[in-house]
């Protein structure tokens, strides 16, 4: 319908919805059910961090800088068991590789050719983690292209700031909790992961890898402590890949 009268003014209008307003809308959208689940998971992590001997600034720094719960949990485990810098970095890097394809899928969606600056993309890329990414991939296509980047920036900034604060509050409160409650908080992280990892894995290779990893993890922990995570990932992931590849397309 070419002659249909749009409610919003045509493109030569001087003040379309500004970036700042899109940011505010994104921040408001962050108040959501997935955000609550994520907050609960980080509250659980605060319990884990305290139990692992991390200080409050260390816990908060890890939350804000890493901002990917699997990597944070891997790093916490590495620090508390005294693993060296290099194996810890490799384990964390392996746990975060999935952020690369996720970012690659998001960027073309928010980029405005010739207008979007690289630093803006680098800034929003920090928020790429399961919760914000799933939300963005599902909702950004409904927004006008210029609004997507500020919207996602607002969403990510609000979500991260809120979770950051709640992690700190939870860390301070864990000590005064009865042991049953803080124990329940500890278990929140693994149960949350088992469920969300399963629902995030689209391919059969991911699901096979998860099951094999659950079995191999304790095995390597007992027989190859220190490098157990790397072995679990490499051996478990390769077995899962080969099995599902064989099922997909035969031996070659």
């Amino acid at each position, binding site marked *: 319908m070419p002659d249909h009268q749009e409610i919003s003014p045509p493109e030569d209008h001087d003040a379309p919805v500004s970036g700042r307003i899109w940011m505010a809308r994104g921040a408001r959208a962050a108040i959501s059910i997935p955000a609550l689940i994520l907050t609960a998971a980080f509250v659980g992590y605060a319990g884990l961090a305290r139990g692992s001997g991390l200080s409050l600034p260390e816990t908060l720094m890890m939350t804000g800088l890493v901002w990917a719960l699997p990597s944070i949990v891997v790093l916490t485990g590495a620090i508390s068991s005294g693993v060296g810098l290099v194996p810890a970095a490799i384990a964390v890097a392996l746990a975060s590789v999935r952020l*690369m394809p996720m970012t690659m899928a998001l960027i073309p969606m928010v980029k405005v050719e010739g207008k979007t600056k690289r630093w803006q993309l680098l800034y929003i890329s920090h928020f790429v983690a399961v919760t914000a990414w799933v939300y963005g991939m599902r909702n950004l296509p409904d927004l006008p292209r210029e609004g997507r980047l500020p919207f996602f920036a607002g969403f990510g900034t609000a979500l991260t700031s809120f979770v950051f604060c709640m992690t700190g509050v939870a860390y301070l409160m864990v000590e005064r909790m009865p042991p049953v409650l803080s124990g329940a908080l500890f278990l929140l992280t693994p149960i949350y992961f088992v469920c969300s990892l399963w629902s995030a894995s689209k391919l059969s290779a991911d699901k096979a890898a998860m099951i094999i990893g659950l079995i191999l993890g304790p095995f390597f922990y007992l027989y190859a402590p220190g490098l157990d995570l790397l072995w679990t990932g490499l051996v478990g992931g390769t077995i899962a890949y080969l099995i599902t590849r064989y099922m997909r397309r035969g031996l070659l």
Partner: protein
Amino acid sequence: MSDPWWWTYVMIIVAGWIATDIWRWIGVFAGGKLREDSELLIWVRAVATALVAGVIAKLILFPTGALEVTPVWLRVVAALGGFAVFFASRQKVVVGVVSGEVILITGWLLLEAV
């Protein structure tokens, strides 16, 4: 521990921040050049998933802190039960997590009462 106090921060910056954000940065620069369904990426994702699964299993079987006093079978039953309910509820993460927690807390309180 002979490590100085700042060592943990170095670990967080190098092994945490850089080791994680490097992938996001590469994602920004590579933007759309690598296919998401390439064999290499399928393998990489499988390795990453197995690694995180290994962490989960360790958290359940060899926990630190308050959970240490609970019997290992209770933690395994809580995790498996939570996952089973998650599965039965058409994969609702909240439902699974809450069920697992209910199993743990109920079992824990019952054991303490005995």
